């Protein structure tokens, strides 16, 4: 295994991670809800649900965050290298899989692990494994 020292950013990764953890801490203690992004988006799509308004508010906060981030730090816009077809397939699988599996990177990978939930440890291990495998196939087998 070769470490990509040029791109490895441990300090900003830890600091950014701490902010994500702070957001999760505030949401569980303040509103009593687990901060899973997939659950927030799927719940926001249930427009008649009493929880839809706060979920839309959280989504607005996420969408506005780059404006604040670019004022604070020098941040380049994201580069989406994948083709539109790949992105569409990726989105479909992510949306469907997150609902079937009851969570995503934030719901299982951050909140679930922080809750020490065995279900979330299993889910995180599995989605990491299939993501590693997918990138391996795309970059080193097919590519």
């Amino acid at each position, binding site marked *: 295994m070769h470490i990509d020292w040029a791109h490895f950013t441990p300090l900003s990764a830890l600091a950014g991670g701490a902010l994500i953890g702070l957001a999760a801490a505030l949401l569980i203690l303040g509103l009593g809800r687990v901060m899973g992004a997939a659950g927030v*988006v799927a719940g926001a799509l249930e427009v008649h649900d009493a929880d839809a308004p706060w979920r839309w508010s959280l989504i607005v906060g996420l969408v506005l*965050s780059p404006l604040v981030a670019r004022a604070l730090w020098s941040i380049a816009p994201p580069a*989406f290298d994948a083709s539109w077809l790949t*992105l569409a397939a990726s989105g479909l699988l992510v949306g469907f899989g997150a609902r*079937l599996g009851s*969570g995503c990177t*934030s719901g299982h990978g*951050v909140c679930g692990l922080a809750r020490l939930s065995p279900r979330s440890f299993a889910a995180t291990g599995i*989605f990491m494994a299939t993501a590693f495998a997918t990138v391996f196939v795309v970059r080193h087998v097919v590519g």
Partner: protein
Amino acid sequence: MKRNAFALAVGLIFGLGLCLSGMYEPAKVTGFLDLAGLWDPSLAFVMGGAIVVALPAFLVARRRSAAWIGGAIDLPAAQAIDAPLVVGAGVFGVGWGLGGVCPAPGVVDLGFFSAGAAIFVVSMAAGMLVYRAAAGRRLPGLRLLAQDA
């Protein structure tokens, strides 16, 4: 109103964390997922930092019944590592590996006016609605209720 303002602040902090950590950038995520190439371990540090901060909050939450702004604290009750969890997480990981994007960064990247993010988020919402329709029809292998993790 108070709930909405609070949730907006949570979304902002969550998004700032994704921006600062670099996880809004798909290439940064695939840099972590590509174990056989040049490996960027940053994502593990993001998860570690987040878990260290969130863990005490969940310990406190477990002992409390009411949230600060009112209402019950709703912690997932599901325990079973069942087929929907395993298959769903597996499918999710394939999608995540293909694009290097998961739900929260996808939504954050809308704020950069990225066309790629728009395609991803619309497709993700479609995938969620497909799941809902399939679960509603009780298709074999799909459990009706998926509790949020």
